[in-house]
């Protein structure tokens, strides 16, 4: 058992209403002047662009001020090799600005905006130079892995609460169309960190039970209860109490997720569990049986698995470089297979032919097998 000392999350996400000047506010980020080589990097995100005021920063702590001038919700990521998440901000709505404060050792990175929160996003290079180099020893690499994954969980949890709040508001306002649009989006954040959420006992069934998961005499609550009403009855009638309960439960999960302490083996096992979820629940189409939005959940499960695996990447690279290559290839194959089903910022309804289901099953099996080996490699002394 490896215990990880408590670390304060480094990511600070602050929504700032664009155009509203908070004079003297300490959190207000000064705009970087062109050619400025210090201070925050301004990121101008739109539906088709991801412009950085500069693409070279000094090693150590950097701040990225992301303003969304587009019409879609966006995300901003700093990726190391293999899409290892160094830091990210989620759920930046149109007209909003958020800061990402992240510690970056010397190296080559990608700065990525994901308008509509989907796919590979708009990618550009980011070079970090200076003295702060990555940790060379593998224990330190593992410690970094847990810290970085905990930051990821934290930001997903924040976005989960925000989006669920919106979803619940739409349900209670009787806005069926809006609720339908928000349903798969809010679930994305849930599915990315599902193993963490599942570790909190009975909250998972309360939030995410399918109708057949419910014990006789127990009430069926959560996302899928509302999903059934939205898609089968095209109505929100009678759903207000379930919507309220969902938000209460999600807030509890979020509070716990922010405080959770994970060790490297839990990361590795979580990555495997996320793929188990895909293999057993998503491929079959039983997760979102009324809305057929399973592919959103599928994509989010794989993204969450990748985030956990790639957090471990430096340690894995030192121990089993061939496994890292296989993982990279096979993650890519799954995302490529999913691309076929993409429509705009979402996915086609999941009603696959047997051949399509089989193809998705094959790429998931191909990925899940090497992912199942990660824990053993991490456990090696």
């Amino acid at each position, binding site marked *: 058992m490896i215990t990880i000392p408590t670390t304060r999350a480094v990511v600070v996400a602050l929504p700032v209403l664009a155009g509203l000047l908070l004079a003297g506010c300490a959190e207000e980020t000064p705009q970087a002047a062109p050619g400025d080589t210090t201070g925050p990097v301004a990121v101008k995100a739109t539906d088709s662009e991801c412009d950085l005021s500069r693409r070279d920063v000094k090693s150590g702590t950097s701040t990225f001020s992301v303003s969304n001038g587009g019409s879609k919700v966006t995300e901003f990521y700093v990726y190391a090799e293999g899409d290892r998440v160094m830091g990210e901000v989620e759920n930046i709505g149109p007209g909003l600005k958020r800061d990402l404060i992240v510690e970056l050792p010397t190296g080559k990175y990608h700065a990525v905006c994901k308008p509509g929160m989907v796919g590979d996003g708009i990618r550009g290079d980011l070079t970090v130079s200076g003295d702060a180099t990555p940790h060379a020893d593998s224990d330190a690499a593992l410690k970094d892995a847990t810290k970085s994954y905990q930051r990821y969980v934290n930001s997903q949890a924040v976005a989960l609460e925000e989006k669920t709040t919106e979803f619940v508001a739409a349900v209670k306002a009787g806005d069926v169309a809006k609720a339908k649009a928000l349903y798969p989006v809010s679930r994305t954040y849930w599915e990315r960190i599902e193993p963490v959420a599942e570790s909190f006992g009975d909250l998972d069934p309360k939030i995410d039970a399918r109708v057949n998961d419910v014990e006789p005499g127990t009430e069926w609550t959560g996302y899928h209860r509302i999903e059934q009403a939205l898609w089968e009855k095209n109505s929100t009638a009678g759903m207000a109490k379930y919507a309220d309960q969902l938000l209460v439960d999600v807030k509890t999960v979020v509070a716990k997720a922010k405080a959770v302490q994970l060790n490297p083996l839990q990361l590795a096992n979580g990555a495997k569990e996320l793929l188990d979820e895909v293999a057993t629940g998503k491929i079959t189409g039983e997760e979102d049986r009324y809305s057929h939005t399973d592919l959103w959940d599928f994509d989010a499960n794989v993204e969450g698995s990748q985030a956990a695996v790639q957090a471990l990447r430096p340690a894995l690279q030192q121990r089993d470089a061939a496994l890292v290559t296989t993982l990279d290839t096979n993650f890519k194959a799954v995302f490529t297979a999913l691309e076929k089903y993409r429509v705009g910022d979402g996915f086609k309804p999941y009603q696959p032919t047997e051949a399509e289901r*089989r193809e998705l*099953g094959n790429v998931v099996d*191909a990925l899940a097998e*090497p992912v199942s*080996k990660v824990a053993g490699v*991490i*456990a090696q002394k």
Partner: protein
Amino acid sequence: MAEREEQQRKGISRRGLFGAAGAAVATGVAGYAAHSVIATPESQASDSSGPVEFHGPHQAGIVTPAQDRLHFATFDVTAGKRDALVSLLKEWTAAAALITAGRDIGQYGAVNGPGEAPPEDTGEAVGLPPARLTLTIGFGPSLFVDAKGNDRFGLADRRPAALADLPHFIGDTLDPARSGGDIAIQACSDDPQVAVHAIRNLARIGFGTTAVRYSQLGFGRTSSTSRAQTTPRNLFGFKDGTNNLKLEDTAKLEQQLWVQPGDGPDWMTGGSYLVARRIRMTIETWDRTSLSEQETIVGRGKGTGAPLGKADEFDPIDFEAKGADGEYKVAKDSHVRLAHPQFNNGAELLRRGYNFVDGSDGLGRLNAGLFFLAYQRDPRKQFIPIQQQLSRSDVMNEYIRHVGSGIFACPGGVQAGSFWGEKLFA
């Protein structure tokens, strides 16, 4: 990965008996042989717990006295790269040499690995003997050229002409999901769990390179492949395989079973062609058929297995004998007549089929039949013309339906240090 393949894996013995024999496996001597004289085919037929030698001039599992259980699987290659396929074949061969010798696969096996990692061996064969497990590999036409005509792995010019696409036979109602496959692996054993364990572990090793296309369990071998074995019965209740090719007929095997030098590409020399057919039997209607009609359809007595008009199972069939009614005793459209070499230009098959009952069909009937497996030197001269004749005229067709089909080129035997299909990829 490459380093792991190069390592001589010792494997973990499933029984203390094999304790000292690990190194022997790697050098091609079955662990069992370290403790006993090399088993002869005849003694193998009676010893249902020992190992069958994996290495040799021919693949095991063809003339090996037919074991009681089958787990057959075909695989589609999902990886696009030839290198990935070759390294899988190497890994598969290493694993096959270990499990056929009754050992766990991998460096640590089923229960000795690190607690944080999934076990290398799935473990359900721990404590079980080798149980005469054989693993036999074959390559299907689609491995050479896919449906669109693409030469997938640079093997198109190595496809033997004898690996013909099977034609449509009258009455075929083939399910594509139970037909074809790039690679077939036949696992036979006297213990069903040993056979299942073998395919399960090979499938697992294959993830990322191959995917299981379909798998079939079988029980109660329906043929004998050695004179030391009694003739078993199929689900029609008839003895099946009386006139089968037998391993003792060595001269005939060269003529009918083993691919000879000059027959085709060198990589197939010493190999054989496998045709697999999933034959559904409508046993409920068969069971309502009178005994005499059943016997007329087959052409043999149900109790003795003797040809109609004869007393003993192994009596030669008299195709000219007529009864008092002036009709042939062995009817013109009977199964044994139409399948017999005398009416097929001398063509014979080495049959190695198994019964199956895959639950029920939802209509109150058993999903039962014969998983027909037949090995031969050239399907164009053997299975194809025989089946064309049977599908046209065999009165048994009323009670059977061919629902799955495949043809595979099974290369010659594996020598120690080589791997399945090495000559094909050379």
